[in-house]
């Protein structure tokens, strides 16, 4: 599998995702945002960080960069796209994913390990997980509070487009286990075709037992199925 990681000024999880992809046997390339052509790839990752300082709105300025037009083209032709954290924010700014990520409800940056439940394991990204499997995974963001209108929310639910929801250690989903105030505890969503996944938690941080755990591994290995 070939992957590309798009690097914006201010991206800072680009190296981390690069390391994880290579560890998971992807042939990975880093692509600078000023490029106008994407290398041929099966997977395009938009990494976490603070593209353009997250000034204006997180993800807004990166969403206007040249390379994004190529990403949109690739997405429309079915290429797999993964947006993590700032990458998720960028995907919503480009319109590839609907909804938006508001400030965390406590208005503070939050970095900690949280639990999420896999809601749809029948996709390219999640087929190696069990349905309702609970993952322990790191979050690190200022704006992870997912918001969308009721029409879209209904669609997310009805068409099984919610990838992950925040929960507690034993799987309860409630206000207490929701770290950032996200609507319905949503931690990650798919687009209609399920070839685009946006998620706030960082799977690339969970592929090394010495550092954390291996709960992110299956997200990458699923893609080989």
């Amino acid at each position, binding site marked *: 599998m070939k992957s590309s990681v798009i690097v914006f*000024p*201010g991206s*800072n*999880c680009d*190296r*981390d995702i690069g*390391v*994880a992809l290579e560890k998971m046997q992807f042939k990975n390339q880093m692509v600078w945002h*000023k490029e106008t052509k994407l290398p041929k790839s099966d997977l395009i990752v938009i990494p*976490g*960080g*603070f593209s*353009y*300082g*997250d*000034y204006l709105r997180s993800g807004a300025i990166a969403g206007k960069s040249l390379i994004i037009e190529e990403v949109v083209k690739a997405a429309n032709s079915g290429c797999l796209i993964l947006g993590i954290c700032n990458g998720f924010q960028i995907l919503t700014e480009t319109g590839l994913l609907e909804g938006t990520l508001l400030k965390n409800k406590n208005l*503070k*940056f*939050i*970095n*900690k390990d949280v639990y999420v439940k896999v809601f749809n394991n029948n996709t390219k990204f999640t087929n190696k997980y069990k349905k309702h499997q609970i993952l322990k995974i*790191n979050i*690190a963001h*200022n704006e992870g509070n997912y918001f969308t209108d009721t029409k879209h929310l209904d669609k997310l639910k009805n068409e099984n487009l919610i990838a992950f929801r925040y929960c507690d250690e034993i799987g309860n989903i409630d206000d207490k286990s929701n770290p950032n105030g996200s609507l319905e505890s949503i931690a990650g969503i798919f687009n209609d075709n399920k070839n685009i996944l946006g998620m706030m938690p*960082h799977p*690339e*941080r969970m592929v*090394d037992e*010495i*550092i*954390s755990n291996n709960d992110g591994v299956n997200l990458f290995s699923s893609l080989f199925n």
Partner: protein
Amino acid sequence: MEISNQIIEKHGLKIDEYENIKKLLKREPNLLELGIFSAMWNEHCSYKSSRIHLKKLPTKGKHVIQGPGENAGVIDIGDDDAIVFKIESHNHPSYIEPYQGAATGVGGILRDVFTMGARPIALLNSIHFGAPDHPKTKSLLNGVVSGIGGYGNCIGIPTVAGETKFNETYNENILVNAMAVGHAKKNKIFYSKAKGVNKSVVYVGSKTGRDGIHGASMASAEFDENSEEKKPTVQVGDPFTEKLLMEACLELMRDNSIISIQDMGAAGLTSSSVEMASKGSLGIELELDKVPCREENMTPYEMMLSESQERMLIILEDGKEKAAKKIFDKWDLDFVVIGKTVNTNNLTLKFHNKVVGEIPIDALATKAPIYDRKWIRKKTKKEKIDLKKLRKITIEESLVKILSSPNHSNKSWVTNQYDQMVMCDTAQKSGSDAAIIRVHNKDKAIAVSVDSSANYCKSHPITGGKLIVCENWRNLITVGAKPIAITNCLNFGNPENEEVMGEFAECLEGIKEACEFLNYPVVSGNVSFYNGTNKKNIYPTPVIGGVGLINNFLKPINHILKKENSSLFLIGKTFGHLEQSCFLKENYQIFDGMPPEVNLLNEKNNGETLLKLIKNNLVLSSHDVSNGGLIVTLSEMAVLSEYGVKIKKPKILTNLFNYFFGEDQARYVVEIEKKNTSKAEKIMKDNDIYFENIGYTQKEIFEIEGELKISIKDLFKINNEWYNKY
């Protein structure tokens, strides 16, 4: 313009210093030149009050590649790896504008580290606030923590350790110290010393604005009622630009274009250019018209003294300008040749084709004043505190009181605001004695910790100085790291006050003695004087930042209890020293007395023996015994674990309060699996250290036989309430 006494004073210079300037120049300075002198001669840049004392610190050792004197210290950690680190204060700016002050503090220390060719891999901070009920404390805490996080999170370097303390001595003068640690290749370290004549001097990074003009002098002035007036000098941090600057500099450093590089920190363009020239025994000529400016009509005075952030000065090899500019263009940063090195030994400033200032470099650097300020030794009263006369309390009451106090409450409210994991090499985050950062792509790691103890230093500065070095050393040992070297940030009051200067001199004596004995050299540091208001000086607060090395790193050791029914050993002898303890402070508001004594021999033996135990894979968890004594140490091991402890009543001390709350030094608690206890005991005996088997771990319950029994869930609650309610 006529230089009046008032102008001289406004520049923080004394009249006799001004006379000295005239002598060195052999004429009157103009205003620009006066401004430059004031920036270079103030405490922050010249170290005029501290230099003669700092000289005594041990700075060499087999691991030391670069000691104090450069932007940061450099140590050798084997193979071709080097670690570059330094700590710096940003106290005054953070009191005035906590968010921006703390943020730019982080930005500044990061530049010190990447200037040397290192990629920053970890940030630490030591923050001290006034009493929690002081009206300013809450917003200062909020601002500082979010400023530190805001900068580090955005630039993408994990903030992995630190300390957060409250004490009314900081009511009007908080402390914000930031430390950065970077990784470099041993043969690719960059220095600030200029070499060669007629080389291009290049300005890169952000544009120059009117920020922080005279920030360096502000950092060296006491606050008073009029400090409001000094407010416009606050700088705003731009972590996004710093990220670009860092990447661009590291990219440029891959080949051999750079002769010398220096960040523009305090006193901006002035100190960076003077420092480069002075180290290279050269002169430097700047054309100020070329300085990229953010505002219109900026004067040479403003340009030379601006403390706009995220800027660097680079001296390039001949013919490398074009390739270098391309890199900075890529990152959308200014890149302008603003001058050249010259053989005049002068700082020459041109503006609109006129020389507007000309000062011999040595007048600004080597000939800056040095003071042997008067100081007096601390007189200490040795009075014993009679426990029997105190109000009766139970062990449980006292434990609860300490664990729920602001200073001992769990700090996750703070640390959850910091990205601790970005870069994916943080093997041990905040919450343990030291953080562990793996060296990228290698099977070794470094451990880092910052420590201070103002109360100890106040009551007996020499002992206090020793104690903090020892505590820092212990914190690295407990995670299995061999302590290598330290950086230090010396936060003190007004050095013109003999008592303060005495505290300074004596703390340094203590630091020196401990560092020498433990073979723990000082490779970088920073001095911050004039912390205080209206003649009320803060407690002496030296902060030690230590770096240790873990070879063959497989898994982190921390202080969280791991197994049921494993043995608990207390290493080191307990005498029951309660003066200056949390026990007396939190329960009785007694602040008198001497700190615990330091026995460096035991310190070294105990520590090195624990390292042996860890190397032999015998240790499940370990924690040093510090504030709060044995019982607090044990609770900290239990609260984040599934296991509690069952502790026997001691045979050696009859008074349980002395035994459980005493703060004797050089002690550790280690958890050892039952089947390994005899092996461990043999090693401890062979190394002649004192140890006791104090009990074992058990499920869920924290227990001292016949005295106290409490569930660890309750302990956790007690320990986690304060910040969330504050």
